[in-house]
């Protein structure tokens, strides 16, 4: 078992560095800077960055982008649903910010093995901040034997300061896409 939990292994830091590269790409496109990579057998098999502004679809978070790449790729290779489920159960996600409630629920649906994130997400976090979807359901089997929410191992705080500083830079320069009353653009800022 890898030592993801105790100290960050060099591998963990290297994968998180790649996720941060993705977040920087998002920032360059005026997107909220969050990025991720998905790793299987020690290799990066997909990466994603936030694309909510470009798509005008607020659900296009980095995780969803990376997941879609994998689903398309595996289906092209003719994998069955069971094989795809098996694949996800061996995947690690490295993401710069704690997955939101939507993404955490999606990761539970897919049955991912493990998630490592950078900074916590105090407003929307689904892996401990607001909801704890990574813990799965407290009642694993309901009366009629329907499996309930699957949990996954989750470790936070990996290179959190880098992740936070990207977000801070982004919001300080003013998110041009935020609803009007929230934050003024930098030139109009009185601070």
């Amino acid at each position, binding site marked *: 078992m890898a030592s993801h939990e105790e100290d960050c292994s060099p591998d963990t830091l290297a994968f998180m560095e790649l996720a941060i590269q993705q977040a920087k790409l998002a920032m360059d496109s005026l997107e909220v800077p969050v990025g991720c990579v998905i790793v299987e057998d020690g290799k990066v098999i997909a990466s994603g960055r936030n694309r909510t502004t470009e798509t005008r679809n607020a659900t296009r978070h980095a995780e969803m982008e990376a*997941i879609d790449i994998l689903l398309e790729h595996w289906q092209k290779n003719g994998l069955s649903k069971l094989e795809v489920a098996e694949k996800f159960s061996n995947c690690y996600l490295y993401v710069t910010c704690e997955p939101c409630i939507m993404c955490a629920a999606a990761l539970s649906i897919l*049955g991912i093995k493990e998630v490592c994130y950078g900074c916590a997400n105090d407003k929307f976090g689904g892996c401990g901040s607001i909801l704890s979807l990574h813990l799965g359901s407290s009642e694993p089997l309901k009366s009629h034997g329907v499996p309930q929410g*699957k949990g996954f191992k989750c470790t936070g705080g990996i290179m959190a300061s880098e992740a936070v500083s990207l977000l801070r830079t982004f919001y300080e320069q003013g998110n041009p896409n935020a609803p*009007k009353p929230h934050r003024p653009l930098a030139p109009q800022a009185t601070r």
Partner: protein
Amino acid sequence: MNKNDTDRDRDRDRWQILYIPDKPPIPPNQQQPTVNVFASIIDPKLANTLIRRLNQIAPLENLRHVKRIRKKQLEGGKTELLVILCLASENDNHLDTMQHDVRELVNSYQLSAFITKVCKFPASSKEEWEEQCKLWPTSYHPPTYNIDGITGFNEEYSQSVFSFMRFAVELAKSGDGLVTNAAVIVDPSVKKVIASARDEICSWNIPTNNQTNSFKEPDTCISHSNSNRIITHDTLPSNGSTSELKQLCTGASCLYPWQWSEQELYMPNSSCWHPLRHAAIVAIECSAARDRQLFPDLGDNGDKSFELDQMHSSTSSPAKRQKVNLENVEDTEKLDTLTEGCHSVAARPYLCTGYDIYLVWEPCTMCAMALVHQRIRRIFYAFPNPNAGALGSVHRLQGEKSLNHHYAVFRVLLPEEVLSVEL
């Protein structure tokens, strides 16, 4: 009376709209938690002086929902005024426990204090509030109180809600296989369908890279005039490829989100499936595609369009919208010339701000949070989702205070028979 009128009359009797509050409702037969307070009857002439003094020496910090003063109707048309003096101990009923400065006030005005009970927590629904007021009056402010419908829908509006829900139910049943969930995003200010979708976890149209080509705006509109059908739709699932590939999914995705890998596909050639393409997610994608098509050149560089559309609050009524347009005539005209052939920029909403969504089943956590992100104003669903529902069944996202957006949630109660093939 023709058939559709009969249907509508039947619906009127059996369909109902129920507000799903932010907190689990307390059953009417169950006592709401209370606290003891000292109260006293006072002379109405002294009301102002006493209230001002009491608010200084004994503010009701954790009981802001409780009214300090109460007017009680007595027999013979007389009224008496009662005031809360301060909190009382829960254990002993002795007046000695009253705080010192309040006791002085009581003595100097010769009030006769007694202990009574008030509700400890603010009401989370109108029903709870009515219960509370029997004990001692409280105020009721649902956090989403500025959203229409929380205090009830009028008859005409209810019929419109039922029409859109009927549309969603028909959509849910429109596949060849089992009934799936369905989602219909509606702009209530013009009663127009913005986007609609079924679950697509089993088969779906492969989007072409050029998304504007694959997208067709639904021209669905609603008409209350003299037509027999309340709702008319031209674009009810006419996706050729979807009907060719048989839908063999086992029910609504949101009900069984974790079972995707167990669902067998008897379609060797169908290589397209996606465990996360629940109806609400697909509908959001369609509405985003519509937005990109209607307003193609805007949004990448944070230009004026944002400044304009941000003026529409989530509660903006059509009338308000009109006003904003007029105030910005110059800007709007400028932008219109920039985006020739496009809809007025001012009409462009920020994501789904101001829009409603109709779902046959209560959405799962993933879908419910997606609807928070996309800024949906109101959610109407027909059937609860005990396995994974996130609007009251398992989680209650509308009550998660930390989220940056809150929608109002309604359940449309309808007979379960509507799910059987003939509506």
